């Protein structure tokens, strides 16, 4: 069974994948904190869409459940949690100074995408699963871009969103390679995401109260000197 037997779904899934990658690039590049949150929500919606497409294509109700869980937690619960833990003022901030300027970080992102494709290639050559040739490389690329976001951004909320984007990437790859992961595992991983957001949101609030800033990348008091 290869993707050739699902031409329409394959095509739509490829479109979803391209936009998914674009949102990952956007989270690295945008200055405004609010814009990165909106791009993350879009990315989660695209993940849910891909899960629905694959669920229809492979006939797996598990994946439809995954899509529903994703929409519930990542598009609805996370913005709500963030709104209630992190103060509204954080959303108006823009990062003026960055660790790396935008064109350079985008160029490095392009290199990371190349590395991701190189990593995914031997896996795809070993086992052929329908849809994996789109989802796996793009999922791994989104993972690397999310990790790069954590390295490159200074503000707290974009770092959190980078972390959640890595998880999005893992699931984007996961829905293609293990469509029948037991629902208990998917449910547990889905519970994990709001807990992460809650913890980090509360921590951000505490940092904001104690230090007056949410620029966590600037905190560098602890080192050996």
């Amino acid at each position, binding site marked *: 069974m290869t993707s050739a037997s699902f031409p329409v779904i394959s095509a739509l899934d490829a479109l979803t994948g391209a936009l998914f990658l674009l949102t990952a690039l956007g989270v690295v590049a945008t200055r405004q904190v609010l814009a990165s949150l909106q791009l993350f929500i879009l990315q989660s919606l695209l993940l849910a869409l891909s899960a629905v497409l694959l669920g229809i294509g492979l006939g797996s109700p598990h994946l439809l459940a995954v899509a529903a869980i994703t929409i519930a937690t990542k598009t609805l619960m996370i913005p709500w949690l963030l709104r209630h833990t992190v103060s509204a003022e954080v959303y108006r901030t823009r990062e003026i100074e960055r660790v790396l300027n935008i064109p350079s970080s985008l160029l490095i992102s392009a290199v990371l995408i190349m590395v991701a494709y190189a990593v995914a290639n031997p896996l795809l050559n*070993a*086992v052929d699963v329908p849809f994996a040739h789109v989802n796996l490389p793009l999922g791994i690329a989104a993972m690397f871009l999310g990790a790069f976001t954590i390295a490159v951004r200074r503000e707290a909320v974009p770092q959190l969103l980078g*972390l959640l984007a890595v998880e999005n990437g*893992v699931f984007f790859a*996961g829905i293609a*390679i*293990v469509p029948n992961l*037991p629902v208990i595992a998917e449910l547990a991983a889905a519970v994990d995401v709001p*807990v992460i957001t809650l913890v980090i949101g509360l921590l951000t609030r505490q940092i904001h109260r104690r230090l007056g800033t949410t620029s966590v990348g600037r*905190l560098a008091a602890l080192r050996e000197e």
Partner: protein
Amino acid sequence: MELAAILAVPALASGLSLSPLGRRFAALITLVAAAIVLGLAASVAIGVMRSGRLDALDQWLTCDALGALILLLVAFVGFTAAIFSWGYIGGRAEQQAKIQRYYCLYNLFLLSMLAVPLLANVALMWIAVELTTLLSAFLVGFEDTAEALEAAWKYVVLTTLGAVLALLGFLILYWGSRVAGLEPFTWVGLAEAAPHMPPALLWPAFLLILVGFGTKVGLVPMHTWLPDAHSQAPASICALLSGVETTTALYVILRLFPVVGSAPGLDARPWFIGFGLVSVGIATLLLIYVRDFKRMFAFSTVEHMGIILVAAGLGGAEAHIGAAYQITGHAIAKSFCFFAAGMTVMAAGTQEIAAVRGLIRSSPLSALALVAGGFAIAGAPPFAIFVSELVILKAGLTSGQYLAIALLAFFVVVAFCAVMFHVNRMAFGVPERDTPVKAAPLSCKVTLALAAIPLIAIGLYVPGPLQELLNAAASAMGG
């Protein structure tokens, strides 16, 4: 049945800690719960020795020898840290709500660490490891200073990133086991499926899990959060973090070793030895330059995690017994060290090595504890770590890995000198100024006394049942 009880008791205690009966009640209930858990863990260990493997709750919970060892260590350190918290945390002039939150999170943290060796389903075990980070985030930031919050932030973000990377590794493992046609996603199931999985899948999964959970263990170069988190947390939490939390993450990696080893054509050992040696080396280097004694103990944790990883990579029954022994010795010694460090902080009011001098005059108990802990953790006789390191070195020599052993011996000796240098400077010498001596709470002294017993005992004589447990755990590691 005891397996389920081990998980239920701390859950109950955490809920009760939040009741309005006051901070003393919360501390008491935590202490009682930790004592019960210790008893249950001991009985589980005995049960495992008798029947090889315990199962409960329709195969959702399982425990074999290696798991029982980890369980016992977590329960022990949880108990001693709970006693230490009575005085260290309870004696502070903080808000009652904050203290109660501390105990609630303490119990939940303990629960998550206990769950890791018990859960049979690998995906649920991953969740438990994630939860150990998330539940201890606010414990690390308890002191509410800028440094503590920075440490908590780095801790949460970096270890969660590592865990999510490891998640992809586990998903690829699951993919491979479905390709091989075998269903249950448990450690036993994976071990059965591994010889049939395509190596192209097994290899990236192994690397992802090694790097991902290696972040949580504190392997170099993913260790940057560890000295911060393990030094800024209150001493009782540091004991838990350094003593057993990194060990539970290492447990997962050690479990992976026989799974990968059973696949044809893949050799994981050079990776284990490589990562281990790099960690030991960098930790030793940083131990020379360290300026804060809690950070010093944190770097020592990195070093010991590296040594255990090298021991596991050397292969062979001898090396694995050495690794099991080292895990045990490290948990006991490191928690003792952090209790001593906590008492030193209370006596001297600072965490800087250079500011503490002549502790033996101002607070003799702290100084004695510090020196004893320093000796123990650095690997001096007659403490347990000396014996376990000798076993590992000997095993390496007999298996022919001369370069690795030479490097390991060199690093261990340098680290020993560094730790001894710092500890002696703090304990002896002329105090620079007359620091007012703050009397340590009774519970802290009780803790030190209690923790000192196994510290000294295990180095001199390993009781029969414990030796059997270590041997069984080692064979579980070897696969």
